């Protein structure tokens, strides 16, 4: 099981176990990580599971599809490395993946 590291909005670092096939959003929610709302529960309709993928990891993750990119255009505080975490599936070689969470989701 890969470990995923989240940096919560207040700077707290949480390292949690992820299961293959879960989305990163689900990993965060099920482990009580602060800073992700995920109102729509993973339907790619609310843009409130926004996070910033650490630079070292950006090229190693499957890229965003058209719907996600269109939704991201309107995410709060979009920046380099912005992704909707409900659209990223956990795979084997994600151990150590680092994601920073924005100050707010909307």
């Amino acid at each position: 099981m890969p470990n995923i590291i989240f940096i919560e909005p207040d700077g707290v670092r949480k390292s949690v176990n992820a299961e293959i096939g879960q989305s990163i959003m689900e990993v965060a929610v099920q482990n009580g990580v602060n800073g992700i709302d995920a109102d729509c529960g993973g339907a790619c309709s609310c843009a409130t599971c926004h996070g910033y993928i650490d630079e070292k990891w950006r090229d190693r993750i499957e890229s965003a599809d058209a719907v996600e990119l269109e939704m991201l255009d309107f995410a709060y505080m979009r920046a380099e490395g912005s992704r909707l975490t409900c659209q990223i599936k956990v795979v084997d070689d994600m151990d150590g993946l680092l994601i920073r969470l924005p100050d707010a989701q909307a």
Partner: protein
Amino acid sequence: MNGNVVIVGSGHAGVSVAFKLRTLGFKGTITVIGEDIYLPYHRPPLSKKYIANLGDEERLYLKPESQYRSEQIDLRLNCRVNAIHRSQNQIELEDGQRVHYDTLVLATGARARTLSEEQGGRAQNIHTLRNLSDAKRIRDTFTPNKNLLVVGGGYIGLEMAAVARSLGLQVTLIEREDRILGRVAAAQTAAHFKSLHQKHGVRILEGVGINYLERSDDRVEKAGLSDGTEIDVDVVVVGIGVIPDVTLAKDAGLQVANGIVVDHAGRTSDTAIYAIGDCASFAFRDQMIRLESVQNAVDMAEVVARSITGASASYDCQPWFWSDQYTTKLQIAGLNLGYTHVAVRRKNDSSLSIWYFAGERLIAVDAVNDAKAFMTARRWLSSGQSPDLDGIANESLELNTLTLSEKTDLVT
């Protein structure tokens, strides 16, 4: 920020207000009382991914159990509230136990409307879908080649038809009104979804109701339809709307009209009692409305949490919804209530958006596989800006190049 907050209802609204209170620094006790037996969960996926067997139950949970403990939220499931005793600031549970509140939040939601006796009443294989227990029962009966009759051509009915087809059932959907989505969408949106379902093999019968349901051993076996035909039936799913759960509020003498009437801060006619989510009726564009949606649950919860913690808060309702059917994603921004004009932008056969105007003011958009239209509309609606109708209807113009103006009057 102390005191006892008691929340009745463990749906998305009730749970959101509990956690939001903690985020805002509320230090008092928080009790969430729910009739449901399951840890609070996302409801929308029930009619979509969950029944299609694409997700375990745990994946539906709003929060892990441990987080209720760590945030000191006393979650009491499988627990019914029998009455509110307003003069004593107490609620009474079904076992007679009383719980004191300083602030009470009613997040009692809604119940699924069922078939009337004339329409066929109840039977073992007639289902409605409202909670996880319903979804489990339906999921167990959805096996390949069974004959499913869906009653009602609203979003729940259409989502159930889509899920059933993906699982290999034979599906007939009947809608008593002259077209599907009659109450909630324009004819253009309805036509797109009708054709989508027909392409996937759903038999859609509009303007058709039930004459009789023939049963044996409390199971429906045949349905006589108002078009004169009789069809074999193994499973019936009824999606004909919901009834807000206002019993507690009504019995307690709170003002109720369709839903529990609340002001801009979510307060009922008793200042110690709030109502949020599906059960609450509030003013929107000069009308009293209820909304059955995640957005409404979460946003009202936030307003009420702020209000309880002493901040001034007012609900600026910006509705949005979504529906997934097959691989089609419908995203809805705004509320089309009272629209006078519709403009359609068509990108291709599977991607289009339907724009609703009241006079010259943009009020809602149905975006079909077009997240850009959805998010653009949300932005325009929240800032009170409207594009002109002709610009919208001209697909060669990019949305972000359209001229916007502020239209505050509903009809000009």
